[in-house]
């Protein structure tokens, strides 16, 4: 390959000027004119209840109220992977805060005031507030209709129980594996729920015009998936895909929370009741906490067998997920973990059970890491603990078991080429492994820790990407994709890929956020897969443009086809030095031939990428036989932690993360993912925590009581190491890295605490208070 000129370099972001001048528009910044209506929700105060009666009369009498909507107006269910969710509650509510009715008014304050006048009569049912209670024989059933729900073929709901899906993976023989082991170690790890906390809340505005066309503007990672779910859910109203248009302006942070369809269904469905008038639904911060997807809690029972030489002989991982009231998306998190809960290690004997369990808490769903952070807490804690018992170096154990390209995965497919061992070695050097550090403050101790990670995109086997590229008169480009800019810099990396092939500088390329009427299909911007998938589509579209250009020049100017190439925004020929034809001379007007006619015309490229080797169908009892994951991104991380032994207060002095990204399209953007993702991960272990009371009400739905990091909480130093073992089917070898950067944070803290203080904490979050309690329990304080 020739030397790359744009890919691999840190280009300036294409969205930079808009974002630093305030010109960038987010959904709440758009103007919809004087006809705009506002919806305000009536929410369930009960975690579990039957709806007996809804009296809307008082609310309807309030001047300015246009209509009060209830579940009767929308007898519709929806869902991404399983249709278990409703626009507005039907006969039953399943979590505190669930949408029961909506007041639509000409003014948001009137809507809010009138919503308080809607009278709902409930018959309370016993709530199930944790997943272990939900499994008890006498537990109330949350979804008696579970058996009849439509779902994807790779889910296995257990009718007449609260188990919405059970992923079982079996490889080898774990009993035999544990017999071969010199040491078998078991423990239970617990992880609570977490909130994404994008600074922009969710919002949706729907407009159903007089012709029956539905346009929905949303804060979303998933314009096409939303269009599909809206069209399917609203099909009883006679709406088809061609009638639905989803426009997604800039998004103020996603982290998985704005994937799929959650509250946006309200904007789409409500609009159908008010022809010609746009209807706006904006979440407030509290709703953002209790009525969007939450990261699911888990209780993970882990058993690992190991030989004295450090080889893992068997892994049994049993994970009980608190998936909440509706699992249409969250069940796929459970599924993903059920396939991969060994971590990035070669293990011959594996038994994983990952259970998706309904509870009367808010719906779980995708969150950066998609379940891998949760099981990584146990797995990476466990390996370090076993190393200690075997008096081995925790890094040596990881190197011994590190998975290599070609190794057989838990479900029988083969692992992609990867640089995990190199990542482990680089982190070990950078963190100064083996060198004890001492604080100058006698009350403070310093611990060091290590953890590996991996993650595959979790997506349907036919999740595809596509791209259009069109030239403008001055040979500038418009790239149209429906991969979403959620801050990660997708628009910039797509411009870089096109620039590399077409030699048009990034500064002359415009890539805008999606509109499903204009931009071609992308499944969703999730799973750290768009650099790879959408990048492949853009690369193909750029090559398509290039081939059209070279064909045209060859055909009209009779230059040898093989001699032609692009350089500096012009066509050049290897056999005709000094000759060049600038792109701007012909990419729109065409080339004038000897007879004065014009050949060619506007150059437009198209590219489609489908991972044609994947399949989600496998044996439900073992998961053998399919190829559910496209590839894994792997890596390693190390951390130096200072702890005040009197107060438990912790300060991260240094954290290092090495990820094998295949090829860094833009190294600065990758550093952005590492520094930001790692802080988000550290916050989940050090202080973030969703609290619910005995009635299922969330106690801390605001930034005062649910703390997310400020600048004061950032580690003293975060070091990024980029490893590049190319992904054979990636654009320039690239694979994703967006989610991975937060995955190892929790075991890094737990392992560093044990290194410094000799106490082990197995439940997240690991607050200063918990450290002190653990020290007291061990008699060390």
């Amino acid at each position, binding site marked *: 390959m020739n030397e790359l000129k744009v890919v691999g370099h*840190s280009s*300036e*972001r294409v*969205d*930079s*000027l*808009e*974002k*630093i*001048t*305030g*010109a*960038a*528009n*987010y959904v*709440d*910044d758009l*103007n919809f004119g004087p006809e705009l209506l506002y919806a305000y929700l009536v929410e369930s105060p009960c975690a579990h209840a039957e709806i007996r009666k809804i009296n809307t009369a008082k609310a309807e009498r309030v001047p300015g109220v246009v209509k009060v909507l209830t579940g009767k107006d929308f007898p519709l269910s929806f869902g991404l992977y399983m249709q278990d969710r409703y626009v507005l509650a039907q006969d039953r509510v399943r979590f505190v805060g669930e949408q029961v009715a909506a007041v639509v008014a000409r003014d948001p304050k009137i809507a809010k005031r009138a919503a308080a006048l809607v009278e709902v009569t409930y018959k309370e049912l016993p709530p199930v507030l944790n997943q272990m209670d939900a499994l008890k024989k006498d537990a109330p059933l949350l979804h008696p209709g579970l058996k009849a729900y439509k779902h994807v073929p790779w889910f296995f709901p257990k009718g007449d129980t609260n188990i919405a899906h059970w992923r079982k993976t079996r490889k080898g023989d774990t009993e035999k594996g544990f017999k071969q082991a010199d040491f078998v170690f078991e423990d239970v790890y617990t992880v609570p729920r977490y909130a*994404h*906390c*994008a*600074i*922009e*809340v969710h919002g949706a505005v729907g407009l159903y015009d007089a012709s029956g066309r539905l346009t929905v503007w949303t804060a979303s990672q998933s314009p096409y998936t939303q269009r599909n779910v809206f069209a399917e859910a609203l099909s009883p109203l006679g709406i088809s895909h061609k009638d639905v248009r989803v426009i997604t302006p*800039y*998004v*103020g*942070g*996603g*982290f998985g929370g704005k994937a799929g369809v959650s509250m946006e269904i309200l904007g789409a469905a409500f609009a159908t009741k008010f022809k010609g008038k746009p209807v706006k639904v904006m979440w*407030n*911060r509290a709703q953002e906490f209790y009525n969007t997807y939450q990261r699911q809690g888990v209780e993970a029972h882990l058993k690992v067998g190991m030989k004295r030489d450090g080889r893992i002989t068997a892994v049994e991982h049993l994970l009980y997920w608190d998936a909440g009231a509706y699992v249409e998306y969250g069940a796929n998190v459970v599924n993903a973990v059920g396939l991969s809960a060994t971590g990035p290690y070669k293990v011959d004997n594996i038994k994983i059970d990952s259970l998706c369990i309904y509870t009367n808490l808010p719906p779980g769903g995708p969150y950066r890491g998609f379940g891998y952070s949760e099981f990584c807490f146990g797995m990476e804690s466990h390996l370090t603990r076993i190393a200690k018992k075997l008096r081995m170096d925790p890094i040596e154990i990881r190197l011994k078991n590190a998975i290599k390209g070609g190794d057989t995965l838990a479900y029988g497919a083969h692992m992609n080429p990867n640089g995990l061992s190199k990542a482990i070695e680089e982190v070990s050097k950078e963190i100064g492994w083996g060198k004890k550090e001492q604080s100058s403050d006698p009350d403070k101790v310093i611990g060091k820790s290590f953890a590996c990670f991996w993650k595959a995109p979790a997506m349907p086997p036919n999740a595809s990407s596509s791209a259009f590229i069109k030239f403008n008169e001055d040979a500038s480009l418009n790239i149209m994709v429906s991969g979403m800019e*959620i*801050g*990660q*810099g997708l628009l910039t990396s797509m411009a870089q890929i096109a620039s590399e092939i077409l030699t048009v500088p990034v500064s002359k390329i415009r890539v805008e956020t999606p509109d499903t009427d204009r931009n071609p299909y992308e499944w969703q911007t999730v799973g750290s897969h768009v650099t790879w998938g959408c990048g492949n589509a853009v690369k193909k579209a750029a090559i398509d443009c290039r081939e059209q250009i070279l064909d045209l020049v060859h055909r009209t100017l009779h230059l040898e086809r093989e001699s032609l190439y692009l350089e500096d925004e012009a066509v050049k020929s290897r056999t005709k030095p000094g000759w060049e034809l600038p792109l701007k001379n012909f990419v729109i007007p065409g080339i004038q031939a000897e007879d004065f006619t014009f050949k060619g015309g506007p150059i437009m490229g198209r590219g489609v990428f489908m991972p044609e080797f994947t399949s989600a169908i496998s044996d439900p009892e073992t998961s053998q036989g399919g190829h559910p994951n496209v590839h894994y991104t792997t890596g390693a991380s190390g951390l130096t932690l200072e702890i005040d032994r009197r107060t438990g207060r912790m300060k991260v002095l240094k954290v290092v993360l090495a990820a094998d990204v295949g090829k860094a399209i833009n190294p*600065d*953007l990758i*550093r*952005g993912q590492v*520094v*930001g*993702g*790692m*802080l*988000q991960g550290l916050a989940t272990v050090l202080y973030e925590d969703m609290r619910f009371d005995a009635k299922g009400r969330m106690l801390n739905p*605001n*930034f*005062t009581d649910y703390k*997310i*990091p*400020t*600048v*004061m909480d*950032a580690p003293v130093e*975060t070091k990024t190491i980029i490893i590049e073992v190319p992904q054979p089917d990636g654009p320039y070898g690239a694979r994703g890295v967006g989610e991975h950067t937060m995955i190892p944070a929790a075991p890094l803290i737990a392992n560093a605490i044990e290194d410094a203080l000799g106490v082990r904490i197995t439940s997240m979050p690991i607050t200063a208070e918990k450290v002190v309690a653990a020290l007291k329990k061990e008699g060390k304080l």
Partner: protein
Amino acid sequence: MKKTIHFKLNGEKTSMDVAPNDVLLEALRANLGAKSPKCGCDRGDCGTCTVMINGRAVRSCLILAVEVEGCEILTLEGVSKGRIAALQRSFVKHNSFQCGFCAPGMIMSLTELLNHKPTPTEEEVKEAISGNLCRCTGYTQIVEGVMDPAVSKKR
């Protein structure tokens, strides 16, 4: 009962009719189309609504619109009206934003700081933005953006 208030927004005289309980953030956005201040929490926690009133960075979600009678208000629209400021250019160079939602508030808080302290220390920079939440960047690149010699001339 609405009241007409008069003030300067980004250097231009303006007025708007506001109810006594109208909050400044919503009034600026809905009545005057100044959309750079955003609503992230509506209770003063996140700082993304930060604007400057008479040279001081404040959270516009905690201020009633009627309070700004006779004041001078500056939003990011005003900062960006002329040349792009050195701080903004440095934000681009250092990849100091990702989704961009917190950027208007960050830039306003830092503009106040740089107006009073042209050569701040790293601690002072952190102090200035300690009330501005950013979920994407991890803050490091924001601090680097301000400490760039093109912005803070010292060192």
